[in-house]
């Protein structure tokens, strides 16, 4: 078995892995390795050929592949090593990685620090337990996106989309542009789950109807999907009898949420937050396992890649520092707590020695409120939406003025 020794091993070459590896190298870690299972770097960005990426980061509106390419070009200018078509099978708490590819066979990679950047997967029909038959023609939106944008095939010509997550909205427009008809986008919530700009640019601009507080209650068809029955739902998401409506279609796309892919992490013993489904991390983005860091969609699902890059640079920097033996025990541990109308906050624990940027989501939409960070900062918000992640920076000085060892982040009325 081939033995490899590196300073920092980054698992995943998507936007998180790319940013983390660059930051680790910049920090001074000498051997930085990206392990990527696909045939190219860039992750899911490569199939996101629509524009809208990089507005914050580059002050430009780039497509997914363009955004990825910027980072890939940076990588090319460095001596960061890249292993493509290489699948990580196991990570141990001692920071040993087993990975396989067809060229080298099994690899045993010994890393001084590891960055978990495996991204997420889409929630499935099975997880939703949509009743009915199991015909062909039911896809998660991202799978359909790959078929259309990478492989060059259109799954069908009459589609219904369940869920108004961003990928579903983007695919509604994509199907329309490919000559297919999108009969309906159906959302169980009373508001769209994706970004407002996507609702406008992908649905409203193409007269695609969005049915809120509705869901698919049955899939019809044996070989290929023939129709779905949709119905309105009550506050508890139970279908309201009498509101059923059958819509003929040959395709059903599901855009019903993303789940961080933490099977490798859990196997290694990384503690997982049941709300985010991602690791619990401190302000260095380090998990409960020393030297194992996490960032990007494996940590919590983001809506903007710009935030992924920013978060991952922090993880990469600290992973580099750890590999160099420069990280020190923190004197003070402050627990971060999600308060009123906050669903979760990352990181979960901070010291008062490093500047920190918190990422969080609200539970429900609210207007004219303020985001209160433990009384240290209070920021006015004209609106907060579960689909739009909030972030706020706090300095070590501000943290040092905190009394007690819990920091509560909450939404307060103005």
């Amino acid at each position, binding site marked *: *078995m081939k033995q490899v020794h590196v300073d920092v091993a980054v698992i995943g070459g998507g936007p998180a892995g790319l940013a983390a590896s660059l930051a680790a190298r910049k920090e001074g870690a000498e051997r930085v390795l990206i392990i990527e*299972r696909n045939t190219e770097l860039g992750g899911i960005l490569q199939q996101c050929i629509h524009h809208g990426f990089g507005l914050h980061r580059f002050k430009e509106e780039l497509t997914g592949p363009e955004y990825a390419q910027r980072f890939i070009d940076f990588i090319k200018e460095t001596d960061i090593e890249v292993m493509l*078509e290489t*699948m990580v*099978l196991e990570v141990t708490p001692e920071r040993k990685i*087993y990975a*396989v*590819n*067809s*060229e*080298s*066979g*099994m690899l*045993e990679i010994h890393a001084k620090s590891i960055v978990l950047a495996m991204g997420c*997967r*889409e929630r*499935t*029909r*099975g*997880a939703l*337990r949509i*009743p*009915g*038959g*199991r*015909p*062909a023609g039911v*896809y*998660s939106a*991202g*799978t359909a996106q*790959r*078929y*259309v944008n*990478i*492989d*060059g*095939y*259109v*799954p*069908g*010509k009459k589609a219904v989309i369940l869920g108004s997550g961003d990928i579903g909205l983007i695919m509604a427009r994509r199907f329309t*542009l*490919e*000559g*297919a008809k999108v009969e309906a986008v159906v959302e169980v919530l009373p508001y769209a789950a994706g970004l407002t700009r996507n609702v406008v640019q992908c649905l409203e601009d193409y007269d695609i109807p969005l049915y809120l507080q509705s869901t698919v*209650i*049955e*899939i019809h068809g*044996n*070989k*290929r999907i023939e129709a779905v029955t949709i119905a309105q739902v009550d506050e508890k998401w139970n279908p309201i009898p009498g509101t059923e409506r059958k819509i003929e279609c*040959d395709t059903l796309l599901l855009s019903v949420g993303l789940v961080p892919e933490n*099977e490798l992490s*859990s196997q290694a013993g990384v503690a997982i937050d049941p709300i985010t489904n991602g690791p619990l991390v401190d302000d260095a983005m380090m998990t409960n396992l020393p030297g194992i860091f996490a960032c990007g969609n494996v940590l919590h699902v983001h809506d903007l890649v710009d935030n992924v890059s920013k978060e991952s640079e922090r993880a990469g920097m600290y992973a580099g520092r750890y590999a160099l033996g420069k990280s020190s025990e923190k004197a003070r541990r402050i627990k971060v707590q999600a308060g009123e109308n906050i669903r979760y906050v990352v990181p979960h624990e901070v010291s008062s020695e490093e500047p920190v940027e918190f990422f969080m989501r609200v539970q429900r939409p609210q207007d004219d409120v303020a985001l209160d960070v433990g009384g240290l900062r209070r920021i006015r918000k004209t609106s907060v939406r579960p689909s739009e992640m909030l972030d706020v920076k706090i300095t070590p000085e501000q943290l040092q003025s905190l009394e007690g060892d819990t920091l509560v982040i909450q939404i307060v009325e103005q």
Partner: protein
Amino acid sequence: MKVTDKQTLTAQVVIVGGGIIGTATARELSRYNVDVLLLEAEAEVGWGTTKANSGIVHGGFHEEPGTLKAKYCFPGNQMYPQLCEELDVCFKQNGILMVGRTPEEMETVQEYYKRGTERGVKLQLLSKEELLEQEPNLDPELAGALYAPEGGSVMPFELAAALMENAVQNGVRYEVNAKVIGAWAEGGKKYLETAEKVIEADYVINAAGLFSDDLARMFGDDYFSIRPRKGEEYIFDLSVKDMVKSTIFPVPGKISKGILVIPTAAGNLMMGPTGDNVDEKEDLGTSQDGFNRVFDGAKSLVPGLDPRKIIAQFAGVRAASDRGDFIVELSPNVPGLVHLAGIESPGLTAAPAIAADVPRLLREAGLELEEKEDFNPRRSGVIRFHTLSREEQDKLVQEDPSFGRIICRCESITEGEIVDAIHRGARTLDGIKFRVRAGAGRCQGGFCQPFITQILSRELGIPVTQVTKAGPGSEQVKYEAKELSEQEVL
């Protein structure tokens, strides 16, 4: 013979139906010097009721004495270890528990203990304490159990595919997408008509499952009917696979064995099945009501089950007969026609024993059967990369680099395994999923399906738009890019 321009095939024995009964019979008959052809209506064998079977190899203590179910179930159970060893398929002998809750239920448990031990089934009565020590995640309110250590689990589709492969190794022919649309007896011969062919046979074995009454009627036998009975099942993610070791049965109701919690041979925990009489033989839909009943039943056995860990659900339809028992007999009206019908639970367990009884029936009908000298009972199983040690995996990739390309990330299934499955007869995405589990994991094919579609297209030499989920009509992607949006106008 009727005049037709269809291609004509002949065979001494034609088996109609490639489910577990048809494939087990094909393999059994391949021991003899007899020319056998199997016809399967679907795109692959094992595709009907078998595919959706719970996969339990029953202990053999449930069945009422004097029934054919009793005649074949326990002997079938006893054949499983050798059968699975010969075919190199997974047989997880993890035992079966029938648990009781009330004093009345414990009395019933005692009765089954008596029934089973009289038959020779190895059984053990467990006290509450012994039960909870063996299965700590069961409801602590349970009073005790009957334990059948020789019960177990197989993957029914894997077994049917392996039986067919081994039968083919020994000379049996088979055709898929060959639904029988007409059948008749004439001049001592029997004829079966499919969309493309007419097959002339001396003997016909009706193993047509849900459609066995339809086939019987074509021959003029209308003395039994199939009463389709649907069962819904729900599969959990591998992360909760260790909640129970054995398959957990409640004390059975009148119609079915109740809702079970099943550690499948594939490793996932499963709960089900319902048992609902349905009108349509192909009604494979699941329902909210079905889920509620399954979950309530399963939760009463294993309270810690978390519905959020469910990754897939499916339904199958049992080919129960109006006789309430198996039908394993020669047609009283058509010489040389054998009915293997009404094979509901415990049909999978009984299958090897039923198949082993078919030569007797054929001999009774006048067929001379002579054992072949060169019958090879062994079939080499598929390589399962994820079950190998790191060293073995390394060695395998050095020998064949296609095992170094992981296609299904959730289950760590390699390109090598997928190509092997295609070479063994997989023709569809579901065929690959059932053979090697690519796409059977937590993402349900979200990531790997486009890749497997490409591999199927490449290996079968067909366009991607002709790759199907489960046979003709279930094409995966229907159009090339621009096919819908651009038109030739000049």
